[in-house]
């Protein structure tokens, strides 16, 4: 490894040391073309000598170099979307040209992966969201900035805890077993391999949910996010592009006077929606209604009325406080631009004791060397430190529930504390019920994750057209977690009178070496070529270790700091280091523009991976796409109502290789003290899965650019589907084997995005953007069926509600059909007595909606963003398992069971059925903001803005759980579930006041 890296680095140095190849001409003029608004370089600007045909064009950062005859005095700068400029160069050898946008839509530069493209040259489906259009408010992680902003992009916050993970899908779910999350690339560095935050399974309480691996990126450092949706755009990422790609571009230093930008926000948050359970008095009424003893409990006559009235949900929730400080220093000259940013976020969650603190420091520098400025260096280093206090809320808690379940179940007539002030550890209504307040006292779980990522990227421009760039990127994450459950938490099995503690660590490292050679030239006025070839090597490493022990004493030391005190037999130690995981790739892309009417893009990538089986080491992913700019044809000249009409079509293949390292080989590993077991039967044919994409799109403008419309039809077919298939037994301990199935997954749909400037006056503007996505998903050709959506809790061992099955959508619900309550017995009636399970509804939405609007009157701006999903169902396991009717007489019950017309018998078993399938349709106000812009205040303060932002303001839905935007991980054997709610950390409604200014 070392030798290899050294070789690479040496080669780069040799290359960079080659002296420049000066062309023998009379005079050289260098300079840079920048966008007058953003101060960023404008690439591919055509520069010609006035009156002559000779010319050149700007490089990706806007810089150029042109040799002109001694008599030349004027250069002409032109590019579509900008006003053409003539610049006098008499006596100048270096100039900077500020380019003014004539049409914002067409002038944009879009990041395409290993390069950029002019938006007008795009042939694939790429959505670009700039900073000004980002969602506002407290956004812990970057994908929240574009939630609801891009057609075809669905972002679901899995739960409401600070820093919670999100489910991100571009154009539906394309894979069964392999990952479905898009590849995320920040400034060319792929954020793969997860985070170093250790996971944790609690004794008797289930596994804690993961956090968002993107949390460490400071959203305030982001300039734009580009979503590569179809294969013609994503094929450059080959075997990792099948789920689409999100490219994040961070802010860079700007030339000119150094500036300081400062932002501060203070916010509060509260639980957005409570589930309707019984209050103390309602509980007593329900006891009476059901003929249960309801007078206050005495020893002689036991009843479930303990005389009090408490609200356990209120008791564990609070008003969360969030503070966020951002400071960025930026400045530089044409040859050295730098930016430093610092941020601090402190988010106290809505559940008592939950907290996330995040500190980030980022540095980015862009330098140019040599007189000719041909040698450049881009550097970027970011560090983030995240400290979390976690509360005991798990994905798969058993019958004693995790914190939210314990609070929902708490008998509302039973006090939390005894008269002497001590907590009820074994409440009178059930010795196995857990007091949620005592739970919070007894539980302690701290995670510290630090992440360092960045890159160093030298480049050399041989000519204005040809550039070589090397990028070394590195992303390293280290985390440690200390957790304990006090022995005083008497009534949780496994912990009772013993206590439990765990110390765990994890490390993730991704290293990247990328060489690219790009060529960018207006070959003649009609013909423009943009091409890139490259080689890339990626290395992924991860490891984790943990120690747990039990049987502690309360000596004033946290258990996790006295692990040596635990009994030997209770201890558990493990350390795992992943196998080699390397990816080696070559790629090329060419983009041709002929007469600004006919555009063609071709891409190819060849990926080799250590993970692939011996017989399939290398994969090739091609794509082709073309566009016809009908609007530039002569026959369209007289037509006024439609402008810039562009028809795009693309075909391509992308891959997915998200299966664990080691899956293709036979392996033996530790299975306990003194023992090893064969864990896997090797599959030398194992390879990536391939998605074939077809995309047809139409872009146009109406009413002289006031309305912009983008429409796309897509069809994505995934074959060689990666699946961990049951192995014909007898076999190894894994019981399954990774294989490529003959099955086919098809996702198809239509996307429509409309952006309109409804009012555009000097003092008053109104913009409206709406996007919609129609989606359809089906799985075909799967041999046999596979269960997922495993339920948890009392009486639900072995119960599941979803299946993977041919000719059904992925994760189709599969359960009993509920036909109501029998009026005489009060018991549930099921089709076929409940002995037969049926395929039911689809958890995948048919339609996604996003809408945003901005109203500006003078210095006052109002923005609002909505998103929604329709046509899908959610399984409400919270209602089924946590607060069922059978609880009455001891624990609390959902009001709906008591208030129903038919009287349900108290012994009606908890059984999974369509009774708990609910329509998931919703429209949610993601955020709304009123901002007042003071402009420049006094001598020093510039661009001062004060804003009030509300997040998650309202949700329109019939769903009865906490939030229809939910996805609790209920996988079975790694087969992911989708659309199940089970006592998650509820989502919050937030209000925030913020102030921003620069110096």
């Amino acid at each position, binding site marked *: 490894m070392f030798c290899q890296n050294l070789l690479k680095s040496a080669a780069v140095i040799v290359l960079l040391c080659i002296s420049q190849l000066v062309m023998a001409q009379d005079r050289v003029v260098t300079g840079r073309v920048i966008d007058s608004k953003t101060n960023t370089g404008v690439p591919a600007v055509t520069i010609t000598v006035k009156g002559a045909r000779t010319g050149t064009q700007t490089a990706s950062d806007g810089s150029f170099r042109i040799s002109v005859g001694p008599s030349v005095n004027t250069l002409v700068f032109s590019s579509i979307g900008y006003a053409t400029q003539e610049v006098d160069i008499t006596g100048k050898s270096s100039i900077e040209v500020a380019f003014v946008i004539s049409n914002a839509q067409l002038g944009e530069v879009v990041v395409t992966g290993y390069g950029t493209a002019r938006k007008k040259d795009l042939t694939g489906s790429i959505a670009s969201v700039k900073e000004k259009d980002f969602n506002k408010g407290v956004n812990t992680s970057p994908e929240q900035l574009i939630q609801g902003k891009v057609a075809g992009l669905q972002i679901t916050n899995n739960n409401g805890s600070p820093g919670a993970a999100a489910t991100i899908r571009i154009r539906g779910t394309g894979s069964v077993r392999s990952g479905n999350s898009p590849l995320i690339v920040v400034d060319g560095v792929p954020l793969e391999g997860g985070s170093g935050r250790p996971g944790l399974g609690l004794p008797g309480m289930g596994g804690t949910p993961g956090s968002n691996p993107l949390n460490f990126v400071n959203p305030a450092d982001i300039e734009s996010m580009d979503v590569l949706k179809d294969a013609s755009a994503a094929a450059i990422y080959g075997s990792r592009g099948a789920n689409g790609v999100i490219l994040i571009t961070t802010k860079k230093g700007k030339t000119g006077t150094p500036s300081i930008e400062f932002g501060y926000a203070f916010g509060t948050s509260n639980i957005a929606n409570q589930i309707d359970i019984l209050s103390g008095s309602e509980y007593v009424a329900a006891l009476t209604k059901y003929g249960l003893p309801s007078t206050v409990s005495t020893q002689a006559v036991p009843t479930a009325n303990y005389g009090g009235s408490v609200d356990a949900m209120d008791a564990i929730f609070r008003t969360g406080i969030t503070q966020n400080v951002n400071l960025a220093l930026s400045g530089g000259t044409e040859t050295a631009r730098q930016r430093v940013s610092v941020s601090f976020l402190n988010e106290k969650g809505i559940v008592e004791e939950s907290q996330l603190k995040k500190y980030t420091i980022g540095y980015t520098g862009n330098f140019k060397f040599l007189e000719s400025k041909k040698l450049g260096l881009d550097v970027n280093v970011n560090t983030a430190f995240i400290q979390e206090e976690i509360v005991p809320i798990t994905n798969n808690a058993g019958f004693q529930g995790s914190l939210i379940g314990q609070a929902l179940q708490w008998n509302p007539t039973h006090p939390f504390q005894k008269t002497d002030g001590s907590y009820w550890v074994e409440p009178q209504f059930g010795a196995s019920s857990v007091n949620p307040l005592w739970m919070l006292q007894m539980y302690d779980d701290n995670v510290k994750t630090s992440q360092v990522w960045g890159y160093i990227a030298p480049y050399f421009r041989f000519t204005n057209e040809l550039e070589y760039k090397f990028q070394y990127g590195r992303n390293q994450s280290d985390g440690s977690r200390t957790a304990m459950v006090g022995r005083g938490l008497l009534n949780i099995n496994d912990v009772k009178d013993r206590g439990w503690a765990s110390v765990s660590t994890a490390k993730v490292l991704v290293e990247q070496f990328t060489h690219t050679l790009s060529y960018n030239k207006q070959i003649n006025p009609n013909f423009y070529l943009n091409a890139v070839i490259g080689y890339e090597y990626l290395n992924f490493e991860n490891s984790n270790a943990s120690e747990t022990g039990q049987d502690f004493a309360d000596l004033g030391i946290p258990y996790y700091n006295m692990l040596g005190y635990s009994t030997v037999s209770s201890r558990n130690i493990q350390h795992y280091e992943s196998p080699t995981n390397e990816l080696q790739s070559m790629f090329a892309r060419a983009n041709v523009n002929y007469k600004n009417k006919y555009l063609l893009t071709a891409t190819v990538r060849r990926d080799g991976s250590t993970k692939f089986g011996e017989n399939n080491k290398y994969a090739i992913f091609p794509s082709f796409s073309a566009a016809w700019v009908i609007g530039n044809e002569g026959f369209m000249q007289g037509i006024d109502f439609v402008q810039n009409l562009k028809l795009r079509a693309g075909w391509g293949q992308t891959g997915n290789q998200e299966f664990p390292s080691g899956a293709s080989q036979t392996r033996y590993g530790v299975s306990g003290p003194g*023992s090893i077991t064969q864990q896997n039967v090797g599959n030398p044919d194992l390879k990536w899965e391939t998605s074939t994409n077809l995309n047809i799109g139409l872009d146009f403008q109406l009413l002289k650019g006031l309305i912009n419309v983008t429409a796309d039809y897509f069809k994505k077919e995934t074959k060689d589907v990666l699946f961990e298939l049951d192995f014909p037994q*007898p076999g190894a301990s894994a019981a399954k084997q990774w294989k490529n199935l003959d099955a086919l997954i098809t996702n198809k749909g239509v996307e429509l995005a409309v952006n309109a400037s409804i009012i555009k006056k000097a003092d008053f503007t109104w913009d409206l953007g709406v996007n919609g996505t129609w989606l359809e998903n089906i799985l075909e050709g799967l041999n046999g069926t596979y269960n997922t959506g495993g339920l948890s809790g009392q009486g639900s*061992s072995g*119960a599941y509600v979803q299946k993977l099955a041919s000719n059904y959508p992925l994760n189709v619900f599969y359960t009993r059909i509920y036909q109501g309550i029998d009026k005489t017995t009060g018991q549930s009636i099921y089709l076929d007595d409940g002995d037969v399970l049926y395929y039911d509804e689809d958890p995948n939405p048919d339609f996604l909606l996003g809408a945003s609007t901005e109203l500006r009157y003078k210095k006052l701006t109002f923005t609002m963003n909505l998103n929604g999903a329709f046509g899908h169902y959610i399984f409400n396991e919270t209602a089924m398992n946590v607060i069922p009717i059978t609880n009455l007489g001891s624990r609390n019950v959902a009001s709906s069971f008591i208030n129903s017309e038919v009287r349900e018998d108290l012994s*009606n078993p908890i059984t999974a059925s369509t009774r708990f399938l609910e329509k998931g349709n919703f429209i949610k106000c993601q955020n709304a903001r009123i901002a007042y812009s003071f402009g420049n205040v006094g001598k020093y303060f510039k661009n001062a803005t004060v804003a009030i932002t509300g997040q998650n303001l309202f949700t329109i839905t019939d769903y009865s759980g906490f939030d229809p935007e939910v996805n609790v991980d209920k996988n079975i054997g790694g087969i992911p579930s989708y659309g199940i709610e089970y006592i998650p950390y509820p989502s919050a409604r937030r209000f925030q006041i913020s102030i921003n200014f620069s110096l």
Partner: protein
Amino acid sequence: MKYSKLILLVSGVVFFSACTKLEEKFNSETTQGSSGGSGGGNAAALLQGAYRSLNNPYQDQSRWWAASEHSSDEAVGPTRGGDWDDNGAWRVYHNHRWTADHGWLTDTYRELLQAQFAATTVLDANPTPVQKGEARFLRAFTMWSVLDGWDQVPFRSTSLGDLTSTLPEVMKGTECADYLIAELNGAIPDLTAGNGIGRASKNAAKALLMKIYLNRGVYADRAAPTFAAADMNQVISLADQILADFPAYPGGFTANFFDNFTPNNDIIGKEIVYSLRNDNASGTGGNGAMFHYHAGTHYNQTPSGWNGFTTLGDFYDAFDPNDKRRGGGNAGPADFGYYPGFTNVTGMRVGMLFGQQKNGAGANLQDRKGNPLSFTKEVALKEAGGNLEVTGIRVVKYVQDQVHQFPADNDLVIFRLADILLMKAEAILRGGTATAGPGGYGATPAAIVNNIRTLPSRGLTALGTVDLNAVYKERGFELYWEGWRRNDMIRFGTFLNARQLKAATTPERLLYPIPNQQLTINPNLVQNPGY
């Protein structure tokens, strides 16, 4: 021209840096399981892994044990309101309405076959003779369970080579039984002598041979088995060989019946012929024995349980009231179920818990709704009503481990002296030739059965005549909840009969269905008739 040189150079860089061969190397695992390790170093660890692979299928309360007990007249897992629905899996175990999609039968089948494979990996790793003998025993043991439950036994003779494109062959019926007999006879010379406390031994293999010979006629025709005298004589001969390792009667028996099921039963459980090791100190074993009692006892008992499994009133009533093996009681130290050192601490009895339950202080316990915690003979598959927490008689055959609750130290008993003796008695009644045998344990079926019944630890009087039915009943009294009832009921022709909470069922129920999971991926399997 200059460009072309440059491009050449850059291509050179690309070429040079393209030096990774994409070799996947392991850090925490090895590819060298079978061939590596001199002197059987890996074989020892693989053998330990093979023992460990028995934990799930044999010790978990939902697997082979449940398939052998819940389908019989000894055990039922009623749904109690919101509790123990578990997708109906317990109910169909008892009323024989299981399907080829039954989750736990699917898991049991797969895990038994995985355990077979784990034993095979030992045989492929240059084992020592003792290791080889133990691995062959473990493989035969798991294959016998599959034969007994499903008749079709997928088998891979090696763990090496290309397993991805080869399907396992499937052995059936007497062909499989004969293979297992040959295997066990081959293994016995290599095994250590005596009984197998947590580790395979000669007697463990001989006891398994007895089971196979005794049931050989069953495997030929489960609906109408016939028993060959030669097979029965093998049973008798093997019994005598095992008895030779026990002290003379009654020295082979424990003073208290329940001593065989204590946390230290590896030391005081004298009757054990073969057991699965559960030992916290060495980190071996599963939760098994604990699960069996934990699944039944009530939440409010000490130690707290899961309030699930019960036995049936009819089975309880079949016992002689003087039978100490039934245990239970709520009077005091005179109770059959009073186990010193346990009952006086926790208030819990051992054996079958019927009627009012008490705590350690002797006070009456209540259920979570405040009803007296008084277990009833009446029980339903789906309990409804106010007393749903207290229905059904609970079974605590294993004395609970008060030191380690999770997991417990009680070794799980597979073969026991009384089982050996009762098999011998049965073999004589089925046409075998009676022998005196060593140790004076009895030369006739009546002598053998009465020698057990009249032990002070059993507390019964001798029976006048002992026929097959008496042996069958005695097996129930002696071996209840030890995982043999389904096997016995099929051999004695009672398995399909109507009984408490179960209607009469048809002969396809004598076999479990091949789980759909394996049926779809192994074309050598065919679904058992009637499913």
